[in-house]
C-alpha cells in the first residue's frame, strides 16, 4: 500500500514537472496581459526541438557526448523554439494588435504541426528510429541527489528521486515569485497586465514588458514539452502523450490564480489526477473521466474565487486585451 502511494506521488511529480513549466511560462505571459492560448503548440515545438537538440548533439559528439551537456542543449533548444513561437505571437498581438484568442489558437495549430513535422522528419531521415543512447537517456531521468538520500525510507523517494528538471522548475517558480513580488520590474509587469494605459501614462515601456514577458514565458513553457519527451516518453518522439498537455497548463494557470508558488503543488496535484487512471483504476469508469478531473477542479476553483470576489485572486485586469495608446 505504502509503496503504491509513493509510486503514485513519484509519477505525479514526473508528469507534474511537465505541467509546471507550461504553467509557469504562461503565468509570466499572462501577467503582461497577454493570453497566449498557443501553449499547446509551444510545448510541442519544445518537445520536438529539445529532442532534436540532444539527438544531433549526440550524433556529432559520438561517444564523447556527456549527459549534462545534452541536458543543457535540450533545454536551450526547447527554450529557443518556445521563444521563436511566442515571438511570432507577440509580433502579431502586440505590434499588429491581432486578436489574442485567434492568434493563440492559430499558434496552437501551427506549433503542433511544426512539432509533428520535426519529430517525423527526424525519424524518417534517421531511418525510422530516433533515440538517444542509453547512457544519455539515463542522464535525463536520473536524480541529482546521491543514492544515500534516495534510500532514506519513504521521504527519500518522495523528495530526492526526481529528475533535475523538477528541481529546476521549483527554482524557476521561486525566482518568478521573487521577481513578481519583490522587484520593481515585477511590479511594473503586473501593472502592465492590470492596466496598460495607466502604466503607459506612468512612463512604463509597455511594448518592451509585453514582448519580454511573452517571449520568455513561451520559452519556459516549451521546456515542459521537452521534459515530457525526454523523461516520460523515454527520449523518443511521442506526439500522442503530449497532446492536451498545453491546455491543461492553461487551466492550471487559472487554478494557481496566477501565482508561481501555487504552481508547484498545483502541477503535482494535476499530475496526480492525470495519471490516476494508470495507478488506481476503478473498473467500469472510463479513463476519459479521470482525465477531465483537472478541468472540473479548475471550474470549481473559478466558481469559488469569483464567489469570494477577492480582488487579489482575479486574473490580470487587462488579460486578453491589446493596447493602443490613442484608442479609448
Amino acid at each position, binding site marked *: 500500500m505504502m509503496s503504491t502511494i509513493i509510486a503514485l506521488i513519484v509519477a505525479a511529480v514526473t508528469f507534474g514537472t511537465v505541467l509546471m513549466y507550461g504553467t509557469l511560462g504562461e503565468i509570466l505571459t499572462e501577467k503582461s496581459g497577454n493570453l497566449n492560448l498557443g501553449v499547446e503548440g509551444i510545448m510541442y515545438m519544445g518537445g520536438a526541438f529539445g529532442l532534436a537538440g540532444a539527438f544531433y548533439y549526440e550524433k556529432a559528439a559520438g561517444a564523447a557526448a556527456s549527459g549534462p551537456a545534452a541536458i543543457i542543449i535540450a533545454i536551450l533548444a526547447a527554450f529557443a523554439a518556445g521563444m521563436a513561437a511566442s515571438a511570432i505571437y507577440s509580433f502579431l498581438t502586440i505590434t499588429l494588435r491581432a486578436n489574442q484568442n485567434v492568434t493563440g489558437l492559430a499558434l496552437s495549430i501551427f506549433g503542433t504541426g511544426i512539432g509533428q513535422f520535426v519529430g517525423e522528419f527526424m525519424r524518417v531521415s534517421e531511418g525510422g528510429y530516433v533515440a538517444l543512447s542509453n547512457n544519455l537517456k539515463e542522464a535525463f531521468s536520473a536524480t541529482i541527489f546521491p543514492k544515500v538520500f534516495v534510500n532514506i525510507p519513504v521521504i527519500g523517494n518522495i523528495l530526492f528521486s526526481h529528475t533535475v528538471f523538477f528541481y529546476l522548475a521549483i527554482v524557476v517558480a521561486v525566482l518568478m515569485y521573487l521577481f513578481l513580488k519583490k522587484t520593481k520590474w515585477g511590479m511594473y509587469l503586473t501593472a502592465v497586465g492590470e492596466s496598460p494605459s495607466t502604466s503607459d501614462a*506612468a512612463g512604463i515601456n509597455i511594448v518592451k514588458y509585453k514582448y519580454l514577458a511573452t517571449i520568455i514565458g513561451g520559452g519556459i513553457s516549451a521546456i515542459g514539452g521537452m521534459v515530457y519527451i525526454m523523461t516520460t516518453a523515454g527520449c523518443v518522439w511521442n506526439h500522442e502523450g503530449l497532446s492536451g498537455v498545453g491546455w491543461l497548463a492553461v487551466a492550471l494557470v487559472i487554478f494557481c490564480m496566477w501565482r508561481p508558488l501555487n504552481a508547484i503543488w498545483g502541477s503535482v496535484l494535476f499530475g496526480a489526477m492525470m495519471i490516476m487512471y494508470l495507478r488506481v483504476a476503478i473498473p467500469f469508469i472510463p479513463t476519459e473521466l479521470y482525465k477531465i478531473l483537472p478541468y472540473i477542479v479548475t471550474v470549481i476553483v473559478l466558481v469559488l474565487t469569483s464567489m469570494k470576489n477577492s480582488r487579489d485572486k482575479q486574473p490580470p485586469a487587462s488579460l486578453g486585451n491589446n493596447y493602443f495608446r490613442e484608442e479609448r
Partner: protein
Amino acid sequence: MENRCAIEMKGITKCFGQVVANDSIDLSINRGEILALLGENGSGKTTLMNMLSGIYQPDDGRILKDGEEIYIHSPREAYGFGIGMIHQHYKLIEVFTAAQNVILGLNDGRMDLKAANEKVRSICQRYGFEINPEEKVYDMSVSQKQTVEIVKVLYRGAEILILDEPTAVLTPQETKKLFAVLENMKKDGKAIVIITHKLNEVMEVSDKVAVLRKGKYIGTVNTAETSPQALTDMMVGRAVTLNIDRPKYDNPKKKLVIENLTCLDEEGVKKLDSVSFTAYTGEILGVAGISGSGQKELLEAIAGLYPIKEGSIRLVGNDGSEKEIVGLTPKKIRQTGIGMAFVPEDRLGMGLVGSMGMTGNMLLRSWKKGKGILVRKKEPSELAEKVLEELEVVTPDINFPVRRLSGGNVQKVLVGREIASEPEVLMTAYAVRGLDINTSYTIYNLLTEEKMRGAAVLYVGEDLDVLLELADRIVVLCGGQVAGTVDARTATKEEIGLMMTQFNTKEGE
C-alpha cells in the same frame, strides 16, 4: 513682468480619422495661475490636454515650454518636462497600494516602498491630503483615488498640473477640499489647468478661462471680468437661456409605490433601510443625498437589478390596479406592460455597448419588439438620427463606436434612447454628470417634457441647486434611510443639506 508663461501651444491641430478634434488652437498656461478650460462636450478639451501629457501627438502645431519648442512623444517625456495630468478616467492599478501607484514607472534605482510611503506621507502633509499610502486602491473611495492621482503627479515633481473634470464624481465637501489644495499649489507657483462643466466652480476657483467650441479656440477671458451667462454664450456661440421652467401637471396619479424597502449588499450591510415613498405621474421626484447613501441601490432595486430583502414595490396601472414587482426580473417587469426606463450611473458598463455605434445601441433596447429572426435596422437608425438631431450629439456618423465619443456625448446617446421608449416611469442617476451646461439644460427640458407627457420621473442628482429648480418634490436619503420628503418649491438648500447628514450624526452618538 517676469516670464510667467509656462506652456504655450501654437496652432495645434489633431484629427481622428475624419473628426477634427482640435483645429489650430493657441493656448498659453501661466505659472501661479489656475486656468479653466471650458467647452461643450466633444469640443476637444481632453484631446488638447492629452497632447500635453504625451498620450496623443499633434498633427500640426508647436508646443513651447518657457519659450523653447518641445516635442512630447510619450507620457514619460511629459513628466520629464514637468507636466502631469489627472485623467477623466483615473489611471490607477487597483490591486496596488497608493504608494505603489505613486512610484509606478519611476526609474530611481531600487524599489524602496518604505521610502515611498514616507515621501507620500510628507506630500500629504504639505498639501493637506488624507490618504494612507499602504491602502489598496480598490478599497478607496473615488475622492481618495483622485487624491492618489494628484499625489502621483506631485511626487514626480510636476509644475504644470492638468485636471480633467476632477469634480465630476466628488461631493461638494470633497470639491471644496480639492480647491483648497489647488489654491495651495498655485501659491507654490505651479501652473494649473482645470477642465470642468460646472460654471460656479469655474467662477470660484479659476483666474482665467479659455473657451473651446467645436475644436476651435474662441478666446481667453479673466474670470473676474466675466459671468456664467457670458461664458455659456461664448461656449455655445449664441445666446442661450439658462433657466428651467417647472410647469404643474394637472391630474397627478399614483404611479410607483414603495413600501419598507430593505436591501442588503453582499456583505450583509444594509444599503436601503425601510425606504417608503410614492411617485406620481407628471412629477419629477428628486432624490438627494450624499453619494453612496443608497441612491444607486434604490434605482437598481426598482429596475429589478438588485436583490431585495424585504418590502414592496408596486407599479400602478392606468386603471388604478397595482402590480407587485419585487422578485421579478427586468424582462418580467417589462411584461407587466408598464414601461420603465433607467439611465444608470455606469454608462458604458450597464447602459451602452462601447464598440457599437448609435444604431446598434438603439437596437439593444428595441430588439425584443421585432418579429422574425432578422435584425431590423431601419427603425433603430431612424431613432438614432432623431436622438442625434435633438440632443446635438457630436459624432461623425450614427455607426461610429460610442466608446470613441467624448464623455458627454456618450451620455446623450443613453438618455436619448431611454426617453425615446416613452416610459411611464423614468429613472435617471446623475443624468448630467460630465455634460456641458447647454446639454444639461437640454436634458432638464427633456425630463420636464417627459413629466408633462405624464411620466413619473425619478431624478437622482448631486447638485442641490438644480434639484430645487427642477424637481417637484425631493426625497432625501441618508445612510440608506429616508430622512424626509420636501416640497422643492418651498424647501431651501440648507434644509436639505441638514437632512442629508442628520441621520448619520444621530447614529454616530
